[in-house]
């Protein structure tokens, strides 16, 4: 099945209602969404493998809680793209505003441009590949999953990080509390190569990246560490 939904002619409510309805949008279908014009909550809560192409810039929470769809945004996205995604893929050809992939539990988020502050905040298993830079406090309280940044990272990267793995090619302005640089072993190079490949990056060697993660010093409260906060 293939269809186009024009948001000049219908509403976000109608769009989501159709895409969330299995009989209206059975698995395997391809959908084009036109004239998005910054609408919020576009293509949220889809729990099937649909292929969705969004033509234009979106507002907040595009592809929120995605659970299986492959969504491409030909443009930039507002705050909280793919928040709490659990499966599927979201690909943004432009830039992403704050909190991209926030609290994501699974799936892959690829941002061709830059991502603003708090990219990957509270991530819980999602993989995120940003081809440009990420803003400050990215991977804040990141629990699990992987964040790959081909550009630079802003201040306080990985603040209060748990078990997420961070790979950055460019400069890191500063590391947050309990985030440290870690050695790149073979297993890390292997997983990084897989992530880059999944994001369509074929011309960047894994050796160009440095790995960051948790020092695990704040996992148990100790008064002598209070100054770290």
């Amino acid at each position, binding site marked *: 099945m293939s269809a186009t939904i024009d948001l000049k002619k219908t509403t976000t409510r109608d769009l989501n209602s159709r895409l969330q309805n299995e009989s209206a949008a059975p698995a395997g279908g391809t959908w084009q969404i036109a004239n998005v014009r910054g609408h919020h909550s576009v293509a*949220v809560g889809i*729990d099937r493998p649909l292929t969705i192409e969004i033509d234009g810039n979106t507002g907040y929470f595009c592809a929120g809680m995605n659970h299986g769809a492959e969504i491409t945004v030909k443009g930039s996205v507002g*705050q909280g793209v793919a928040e709490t995604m659990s499966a599927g893929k979201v690909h943004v050809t432009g830039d992403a505003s704050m*909190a991209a992939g926030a609290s994501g539990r699974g799936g892959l988020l690829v941002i061709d441009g830059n991502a603003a502050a708090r990219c990957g905040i509270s991530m819980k298993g999602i993989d995120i590949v940003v081809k440009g830079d990420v803003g400050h406090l990215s991977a804040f309280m990141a629990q699990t999953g992987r964040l790959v940044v081909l550009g630079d990272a802003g201040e306080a990267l990985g603040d209060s990080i748990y078990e997420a793995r961070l790979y950055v090619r460019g400069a890191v302005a500063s590391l947050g509390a309990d985030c440290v640089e870690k050695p790149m072993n073979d297993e890390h190079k292997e997983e990084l190569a897989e992530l880059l490949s999944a994001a369509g990056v074929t011309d960047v060697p894994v050796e160009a990246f440095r790995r960051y993660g948790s020092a695990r010093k704040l*996992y148990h409260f100790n008064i002598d560490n209070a100054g770290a906060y």
Partner: protein
Amino acid sequence: MSNAPRHDGWMRTTPRKSATFDDYAISEIRRAAATGIYDIRGGGAKRRLPNFDDLTFLGASMSRYPLEGYREKCSTNVTLGTRFAKKPIELDIPVTIAGMSFGSLSGQAKEALGRGATLAGTSTTTGDGGMTPEERGHSDKLVYQYLPSRYGMNLHDLRRADAIEIVVGQGAKPGGGGMLLGQKISARVARMRDLPEGIDQRSACRHPDWTGCDDLEIKIEELRELTNWEKPIYLKIGASRPYYDTALAVKSGADVIVIDGMQGGTAATQEVFIEHVGIPTLAAIRPAVQALQDLGMHRKVQLIVSGGIRNGADVAKCMALGADAVSIGTAALIALGDNDPALEADYQALGTTAGAYDDWHEGLDPAGITTQDPALSSRLDPIAAGRRLANYLKVLTLEAQTLARACGKSALHNLEPEDLSALTIEAAAMAQVPLAGTRWIPGAI
């Protein structure tokens, strides 16, 4: 002849303890000096606060007609979420069970809460740990909390919830995040939260993907889009600035507002936070109702009040002040068996006593409620505990009805501030009802 007193007692004064440096303050200074860490505990504010005991009902007399107790109807049902939700929640009684997490509570305790609430015709609420089968399976109506941590949050559970409660804050700690210490992070709890087992877990105080009420309006719209506009969206706020917070919650598009006063409990937080942040429940209701009235939204956006509700009088007083329902947490745990004097020997072994036990974060609860230890949690029979909770909820309802009938009201919702009188100047000011025997309402909102 000597002027010396004939008894030794004349020579010295009675030892006098300081009202400022009382036994508790001194013991806390010593504890802090010995450990180097602040005190963490569960529960809500324990100190004396102006509360519902400082109000009394003005029963019917010459100018008001009472209803016959046990004979004339006094309805108790309430519908929550009538503003936007396609499927509002219908409850038989206006007393709901507040959010308490699996993790802070045992699976058995969550099941018991579900069983008791369902028997009584009301709802339960998840907490900062996701939705468990025990809870969903035994709760006819389940409110799914949407917290800053988003632990366990997923589309499937969101859609099988009956309502969604966005937690901005709670009365025990407005402005604070969650805390669950390593002793309670079992393998199952860790898996549900995507965290390593056994670590001290401190969850966020701010939501990861929105800041401020302009963002929240968009977030609420997203949640509605995710759930086909079916679910009522609650917004839970710790009582600190109830007038403005309520107004902003209405502006953000909430269906239901939950205001939690400083007596409201927590699983674990710093003592200094519990006792020194927020305002009493009594003081939070009228400003919240005033905000709703000023916006023309009273009874259209429903108001749930929580924090220190103990009996049917408290329920009736909240409703007379303008609430649509109340929510209980600590009282529900007591009904399940928390702090049972029958377990005194166990409490003594923990260095405390029944009625004072609040180290819920340590996971050693002899009643099997605030623990993840399989041996301890198996002590709680969820069926019997659920029955006790249902009994207690029924008593709350009967007591509230008794008071409403005495005021001539055929529905709990018909109670009004005019039915109340205050016994203290503080209560008169906070509840905005006259001091008993006067027409004086101190202060103005």
